[in-house]
């Protein structure tokens, strides 16, 4: 019992370390953005789980394959819309594992080369005005979020 309560004490302490909490509006924004955006990774995972042909490839020509992907997505939607309970236990399990896999050590986004296709040099007609507006929109969302977060931290008694 003694050890247990000590353990409890330490986990409580560690969990309250502010280091692991977002330190500014950018970190908080990225965190929540990633949580919400996660749905698209889950849906791709579910699709490939349901139709393993997408994972392992097939002999069909690229054109037929491209059509098939759409067909699979439509079937996915159809099942999902009409049968809410369709999420089979195995699929649930799979999605759960997908989530927990992501609990990798803390790092910095975009430093691992993931998803960096050079979005910078591919503007393709995007005006700098549009980009600035989009960045401003992001800043205002992030700051609003941060203000509320700080207020809630105070309320909960964190410092």
């Amino acid at each position: 019992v003694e050890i247990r309560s000590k353990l409890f004490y330490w986990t409580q302490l560690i969990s309250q370390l502010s280091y692991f909490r977002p330190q500014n509006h950018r970190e908080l924004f990225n965190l929540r953005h990633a949580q919400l955006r996660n749905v698209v990774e889950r849906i791709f995972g579910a699709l490939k789980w349901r139709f393993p042909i997408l994972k392992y490839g097939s002999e069909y020509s690229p054109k037929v394959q491209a059509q098939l992907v759409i067909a699979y997505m439509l079937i996915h939607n159809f099942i999902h819309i009409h049968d809410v309970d369709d999420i089979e236990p195995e699929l649930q399990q799979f999605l759960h594992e997908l989530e927990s896999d992501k609990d990798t050590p803390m790092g910095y986004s975009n430093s691992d080369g993931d998803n960096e296709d050079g979005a910078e040099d591919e503007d393709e007609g995007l005006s700098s005005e549009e980009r600035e507006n989009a960045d401003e929109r992001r800043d205002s969302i992030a700051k609003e979020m941060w203000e509320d977060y700080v207020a809630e931290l105070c309320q909960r008694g964190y410092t």
Partner: protein
Amino acid sequence: MLDAQISQLVSLQRDFSTVQTQSQGMLLNYIVKYLSYDDRYIHHVSDALANPNFSDVYMHLPSDGTPLSKIIISNPKFYPYFKDAVGAVDCTHIHTRPSDGARARYRDRNGALTQNIFAICNFLMIFIYVLSGWEGSASDSHIFHFARRRDLELPKGKYLLADAGFPSCDLLLVPYRGVRYHLKEWGRGNQK
């Protein structure tokens, strides 16, 4: 027999009654099986599903009247901040076997022969847009620009969540670059 079943599926369209749900589920399982195991019908099935009577009903972008997502409204972490987000966008690679002449274009960053599939889903795990057929060497942002020029449109003021591989623009809300990730908001022991 399968053709008849598919035309039945296509004719379902909007007025899908609950009475039919069970038998439709069985029909779908059947079709899914055929898609996976039987080559001979695969074209029929994909053609049948591509019929706009079916595809436009089961996969479409939001319109002006589309209500805000419950997933967002019901979660104070997301609402009201992301109230105008209507979905999330990403690309995924699937293995493919192109003809010899086209191989170079299909080779992705990892050296595999793939196609790059661009898709958007809403927060209820429903696909709302897809663009398939791009070669594996095409970048995510390039495909996005193509889709935008072609037919990707959202109601005014709405946007999609995308990762940092996509450009920051009207239609997309992307994360800040070079920011710490895998943080926890309150710590495990304090989740309420």
